[in-house]
């Protein structure tokens, strides 16, 4: 057991603090409350190499883990930086595990393309069904339905609301279900049958959310296991927790 950060992790955190420190993120967050535009931090993320943080090195990534991603998320939270890693990182983790090792993955690692994770909550011992966020109400919605075709292709039907970083993403990694259980499908955001609508009236102006509707949307099935999809769900939650921790720590320190 060693609960210290490694030297590399300390460097990663300091680099993140420096990178965010070059942008007036807190002022921008305040202005965004009044309708101001948020600065685009994607180039910052790309330059720093966070876009490939969770991708293995053979696929152009840094091969780092959840704790490293949390360090970056905590620094983002500390200065209310709106950087679309909450969508991108879990999506790339699924892609890496899921055998999509092509040009798309390389571009995602390099930040030339941006992915968003369209999440489904794993079932549990009370209710085995995988569910998604509904547009309103306490009841959760069913995960999108996946119909497999030939050659690893599939069509997806369903809707998932309040998806972080979905608006403007190039690639959607959708967690849906077929007869055998949960399955991940990668869908081009611009392809037919995919609609991503920006959510309005969002409480946190630094957190863009979108409503994703899939109507016979075509995509490719990933080989990610059920365990990989569970891990992605919990990874997204640890990132939100880390981001919140950063924000709270800063409040206590100021």
């Amino acid at each position, binding site marked *: *057991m*060693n*609960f*210290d*950060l*490694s030297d590399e992790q300390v460097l990663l955190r300091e680099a993140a603090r420096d990178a965010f420190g070059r942008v007036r993120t807190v002022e921008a967050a305040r202005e965004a409350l009044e309708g101001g535009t948020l600065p685009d931090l994607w180039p910052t993320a790309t330059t720093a190499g966070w876009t490939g943080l969770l991708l293995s090195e053979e696929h152009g990534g840094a091969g780092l883990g959840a*704790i490293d991603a949390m360090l970056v998320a905590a620094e983002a939270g500390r200065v209310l930086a709106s950087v679309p890693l909450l969508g991108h990182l879990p999506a790339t983790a699924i892609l890496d595990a899921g055998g999509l090792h092509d040009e798309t993955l390389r571009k995602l690692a390099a930040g030339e393309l941006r992915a968003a994770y369209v999440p489904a909550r794993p079932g549990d*011992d*009370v209710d085995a069904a995988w569910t998604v966020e509904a547009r309103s109400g306490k009841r959760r919605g069913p995960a999108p339905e996946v119909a497999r075709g030939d050659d690893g292709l599939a069509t997806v039907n369903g809707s998932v609301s309040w998806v972080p970083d979905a608006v403007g993403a190039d690639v959607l990694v959708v967690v849906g279900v077929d007869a055998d259980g949960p399955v991940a499908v990668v869908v081009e955001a611009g392809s037919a049958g995919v609609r991503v609508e920006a959510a309005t009236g969002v409480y946190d102006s630094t957190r863009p959310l979108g409503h994703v509707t899939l109507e016979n949307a075509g995509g490719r099935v990933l080989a990610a296991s059920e365990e990989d999809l569970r891990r992605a769900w919990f990874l997204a939650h640890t990132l939100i927790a880390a981001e919140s921790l950063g924000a709270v720590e800063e409040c206590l320190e100021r």
Partner: protein
Amino acid sequence: MDLNDTPEQAAYRAEVRAWLEQNASHAPATRGRGDEEGAVAAHRAWQRKLAEAGYVGVTWPAEHGGQGKGPLHQVVINQEIARAGVPGILDAIGVGMLGPTLIAHGSDEQKQRYLAPMLHADEVWCQLFSEPAAGSDLAGIQSRARKEDDGSWRLSGQKVWTTNAQFAAYGLLLARTDPEAHKHKGLTMFVVPMDAEGVTIRPLRQISGEPEFNEVFFDDVRLEPGSEVGAVNGGWGVALTTLMFERLTIGAGSEGMGYRADRFAAAIASDPVAAKDPEVRARFGELATELLALRFTGYRLLTAISRGQIPGPEAGMGKITAVNGAIAAGDLIADVLGPEALDPESEWSYLISFLPGLKSAGGTEEILRNTVGERVLGLPPEPRLDKGIPFSELRAKERQEVAS
């Protein structure tokens, strides 16, 4: 950061586990049931066995009979003891809190004389701090020690909530030695032989049915010259060392005391209806989160200690979290299992009835939150009306107010 054992820790864990598997048959059952004297003897023997194997006081320096290892080794031992389902050591207060205080502040003679028998449970120790009118406000104690011409001391006063006093050989006692000084300044720490003339120990029977606490009276007890620990009138600093180890023991060591989320989960899951009940799950989720956060906060604290840093007042937060989390677990288990949870034979009956006492041990929640607020968060301090006033005048003032 690595949440797994290092190869060295894994090897140590395997060694401890193998030893416990071989020796678990010598371990006594749960604490203090039935024949009290027999039970104490059995727990004494068990601590001695652990000490001989090198598993007691592992963080103590080797020169005092310890192993000179890091606090994470202690965690490994605590976890393996919990896993084996055997009791921990009898004198956790001595080995965990009072021994380290002696190591930090005691004279060479004191270390030579007291530490080895403490480690082996040949002499059990008790902590004589709290008084009827001074618990959370510890610096308000009134037990009085007066120095004689020959360098000996005469001690009079009363202590209360003293764990293990009924079979302790020695106590570490905080007494007032200069009433004319400000209340934090006129205190001295002493070693008191519990069999000295003028010491009276009376049991306090708790709701659990067991007399774990005592009240202890001192009637003109003679203490040998050299009984003081640390400087005369420097007792407050010595007491703070003990309290720091106490909070650390309760907070970071709470898993060793059995306050573990997985243990509570198993009990709840034994009722298939409760296991799927949304309210039970939500309540369990909340307390399990606290206890897991505590586990890792505790480890982080231990990492800092192993680097030679001294834990600050934030250690108090761990104590609050441990006790509140365990109380919430006890309540939930009582709700799930029904009145049978309180059956004396149930493993939960003792836990549920013991925990309220732990609320005040090591400082009450209110006091600890004040300390965290002031010293960790930097919030404005509470108004202190007693600041700069000699203790004797403070008492006179209080009496005046009571009279009027």
